[in-house]
């Protein structure tokens, strides 16, 4: 019995969707998520992975099928059918990618909004962003304007832990202005928003914590603010992601995420003694 090609196409399509679903749900290619915006990121990643897998496997399947099914036998000198195009088919595969891409754009806009990336855009335009960074203003009056790094905590009302980060060839230096601690590694408590005030002394560096899914270039002459909230205890690498010279590969540090109590202990033991 010959199965109609429409049914075969339908079955192949369903198999593709199931494969996409399986890949999205059961394949994990990302490091552990340790900040509040990481699960949001992972959601986007799963959607991209599902769509990408369906497209790649589908296209590969069609090409391989064509190569086998339509291969030329020895001695065959005939031509294929003289089909020069098909307007409705071409419109179909113009419209489908356009819809998918538009959907992805809107969806990733939504994801970015949930990560806090669009806060600035919603607060009418780019010239007002300094006003939002009230804590920057308060702690350092008269400080030069800081570029906003693009990812902010979901709610802006919690108490923020400011940390000054200086990137230089080939290290990150962390300074806690409120506690007057200077450290080569970053310590943060869970559940509290941390505001990194980044500046570079020499060349461009990039501050990247894979487990937090955040990255920010640190550009000389362009002080930048980056905010995140860690939510998983652990010790995660901080990696410089922008070529900064011979020892670029060695420019690494780490961030220790602690319970608020353990973090308080760390602050206490590391606060320099003051004469007062």
């Amino acid at each position, binding site marked *: 019995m010959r199965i109609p090609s429409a049914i075969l196409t339908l079955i192949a399509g369903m198999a593709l969707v199931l494969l996409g679903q399986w890949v999205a749900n059961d394949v994990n*290619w990302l490091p552990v998520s340790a900040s509040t915006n990481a699960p949001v*990121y992972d959601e*986007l990643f799963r959607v*991209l992975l599902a769509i990408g897998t369906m497209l790649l496997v589908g296209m*590969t399947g069609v*090409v391989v099928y*064509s*190569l086998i099914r*339509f*291969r030329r036998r020895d001695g*065959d*000198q*005939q*031509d*294929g059918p*003289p*089909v*020069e*195009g*098909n307007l409705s088919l*071409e419109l179909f595969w*113009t419209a489908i*990618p*356009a819809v998918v*891409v538009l959907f*992805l*754009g809107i969806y990733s*806009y939504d*994801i*970015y909004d949930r990560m806090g*990336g*669009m806060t*600035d*855009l919603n607060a009418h335009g*780019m010239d007002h962003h300094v006003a939002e960074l009230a804590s920057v203003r308060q702690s350092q009056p008269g400080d030069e304007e800081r*570029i906003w790094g*693009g990812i902010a905590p979901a709610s802006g009302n919690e108490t923020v832990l400011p940390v000054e980060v200086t990137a230089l060839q080939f290290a990150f230096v962390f300074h806690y202005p409120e506690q007057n601690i200077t450290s080569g590694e970053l310590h943060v408590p869970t559940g509290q928003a941390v505001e990194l005030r980044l500046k570079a002394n*020499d*060349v*461009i560096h*990039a501050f*990247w914590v*894979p487990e937090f*899914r955040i*990255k*920010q*270039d640190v550009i*000389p*002459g*362009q002080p*930048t603010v980056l905010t995140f909230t860690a939510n998983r205890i652990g010790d995660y690498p901080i*990696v410089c*992601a922008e070529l*900064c*010279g*011979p020892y*670029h*590969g*060695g420019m*690494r540090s780490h961030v220790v995420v602690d319970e608020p109590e353990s973090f308080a202990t760390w602050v206490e033991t590391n606060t320099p003694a003051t004469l007062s």
Partner: protein
Amino acid sequence: MTIASPPSPSPQPLRLQPTGWLRYFSFSLDHKVIGLQYIVCGFLFYFVGGALAGVIRTELATPISDFVSRDTYNQVLTLHGTVMIFLWIVPVVNGGFGNYLIPFYVGARDMAFPRLNAVAFWMIPPSGLLLISSYFIGGAAQSGWTAYPPLSLTTPAMGQILWIVSVLLLGGSSIFGGINFIATILKFRQPGLKLMMLPMYCWAMLGTSILVVLATPVLAGTLILLSLDIVAHTGFFNPAAGGNAVVYQHLFWFYSHPAVYIMVLPAFGLVSEILPVHARKPLFGYVTMVYSIMAIVILGLVVWAHHMFTSGTPPWMRLFFTIATAFIAVPTGIKFFNWIATLWQGRLALNSAMLFSCAFILQFVFGGITGVALAQVPFDVHVHDTYFVVAHFHYIVYGGTVFVIFASIYHWFPKFSGRMLNEHLGRLHLALTFIGFNLCFAPQHWLGLNGMPRRVAEYDPQFTLINQLSSVGALLMAISTLPFLINVVMSLLQGPAAGPNPWRALTPEWLTSSPPPVENWIGAAPLVKEPYGYGSTEGRIDVNQARGQDLWRQQP
């Protein structure tokens, strides 16, 4: 016939140009000689770039910096990128195949400006040698092929200046070539050949040349400002002198993103020529293919800031560039669907040219999917400047253009040389390249997602195994060129004769002898109004017997 034959052809005519093999080392004005000069010269630089890639993969076989010094490693990765882009892919897919094929396709005897054409080629070997020699005189540039300031201002100045000079010369060569292609395609078409009758490669080269002419001068201006910052201590891009480092990134990517299309659009055009011949079917959707190319040209000029999503670009800019970038997938997708529709129900010859083209389709689709993902700001923020991006752009530029260059060589070698290549060695070449390439670059996606940044000589030891896998893939890719080289040398010496048209193709370069005479055709140039007229059964003439005049007279 109005062509006057010379009254008494002397047995040894006086020639201004050297003949024989010597003409390939001369300032030849023949577009076919120049095309082959580009291709062979590009291949030599491909080996240099490949050797540099070998150094990188050897260094990365271990997590510590132990093979070359850290300074040398950065010089190697800078040279690798610059050589592969500016001396291999751009010259070969544009200058090489463009010069060889475009005059045939428009029915001309040569390019519009033959002397400019020769100048454009002869700028390449000296600037390539200058670039490579900078390694031996005080060290090459160390700031990557992107040369971001302030790093490029603080690394040794000599290497950086030599890098700038050679890239400027190569950019100049590219602009000369672009002007020549635009003039040839628009003004050198023979009477009766309308734009919409041109083979698709002409459209691809027209689009590419528009990009070259619009975008390359921006790079030239930027690099001149950068060299002033280095030599004259001006402060255009130097924050320490009041400059702005991000402005450089905008200007640089205004050229260097279109540069991706300068590399892949000609490859798209070449594939559009190869597939119909070996599938024995017309190219599916000619008109939408043309509009897609033009859409890619326009969109390609307005997406550059997606390289800068972590550089503190304002949010409205991120939104715009996300959507513009993702939309390039629409015209690109049309082209891929049309190629697959061209294959569908064809009579596919599973030869090396066809298989390399199909491998290109699969790999470019993969690279395109990761490209759409990278256009999404939140996704990009995590993987920007990591091995994920390295994997993505190698799928685009190696999977997307180098595979097409090989497909094109298998397809046009009979025309270039008059001899056939060996298909068994060709398929072995394909299998080794395909396996090696995917083994080398597919695992790098995972590396990037999990925390390995690009351009590092040392890395977290947890990534050792995957990096070693990748290095094995690179080794396979290096080995895969051996069957190709053996094939080319053997065929040149004792390959079977190809005859004028071994593939029974309809495009004009096949309607002449192999290799073609100096002015392309003896007698009148054929007027090919349907370059993809395969599959029609009525009123067909056997192409093996046809001469150019037959097609010329066959006007409806």
